[in-house]
């Protein structure tokens, strides 16, 4: 189960809480696509994420690259170890670039 909350503003922030897997990846897709409308930057906060698999990671990588190509920045922050582990396994930082990570 994935819960999402969007803090609106010049730079919207999407707070994710729960698990990102095949079952919730459509929620993830919808909330990011919706928040990206009409803005040049969106932040995704992973503090509450307890699980992510290749479905979620694959979508995230695709989003980062596709939006970057359109001049829109999707930035990620507060990556918990359980998510960072999967990102490391799949070389996410290499794929999307370090600049997509707000907290280094």
């Amino acid at each position, binding site marked *: *189960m994935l819960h999402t909350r969007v803090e609106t503003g010049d730079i919207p922030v999407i707070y994710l809480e729960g*698990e990102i*897997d*095949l*079952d919730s990846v459509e929620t993830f897709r919808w909330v990011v696509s919706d928040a990206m409308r009409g803005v040049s930057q969106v932040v995704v906060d992973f503090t509450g994420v307890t*699980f992510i*698999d*290749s*479905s979620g*990671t*694959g979508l995230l*990588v*695709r989003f980062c*690259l596709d939006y970057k190509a359109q001049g829109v920045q999707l930035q990620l922050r507060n990556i918990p170890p*359980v998510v960072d*582990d*999967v990102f490391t*396994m*799949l070389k996410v930082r290499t*794929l999307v670039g370090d600049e997509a990570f707000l907290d280094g």
Partner: protein
Amino acid sequence: MVTQATKIPATLQVMRYDARRGTFKVIVGDPANVPREILAQRAAEAMRARSFICHTTDDQDDALLGADEICFIPTADRCEIVSIHTNGWRRHHGDHRRSLVEILNDLAAAVARGTLSFLDDEELATVTAEGREIFACTIDGSASLAQARAAVARVLNDLDVDSDARRRLELCVSEATTNMVVHGGGEGTMRLRLVDDRLRAIVADRGPGLNFLNWTEEAGGAGQPSMGYGYKIILDNLERVYLHTGAEGTTLVLDRTI
């Protein structure tokens, strides 16, 4: 009447060459229409070199190999011959998505280092009967995935497995069951067995088989091999992975010491 164009997915073939007997056995897919003497020659080369050798269509004698990509992987006194027919799907993407070439090379490397084994029917029966069953459940859609993970977590917690191994096993089981839901007909079973000091997860479906190389979009588009990130996670985090696949379904067996 609405007709739909048939899309033939990229497919995988695995043959086993027994060097002592000079015989071939088909393990996965339909054997490539390749002269056996050529295959035997290439297998012998790899066995002499004691390392896996991959050939691509760029090689001069590609026509003789009859596959778009083919790898010869020596293991003891036999050689696994793993090949891909791309069937028109692009071999390379040139972007972040894993290409067929990468996938085949990863498979070959996993077989060479002993992590991955392709099983025939007899071997599957042995591997799935070893040890004792400690849990079984049905997977029938994406909503079951979290339940399967929770079940694995409970079992591993009861067995006092450390948190790192537990997390990795949960992730790998999740990837295997996700693959089953997406490509294996949408449903199947997940069983857990204890085999000595190892946890063995057996994920089985009755899907169309060879499902892990099916492509999700058409050539020329943003096609992505389904066997991408998920299988990378599985192969990188487990000690042994066994794969049996055919027209009657796919079984993936995942082993990790606990």
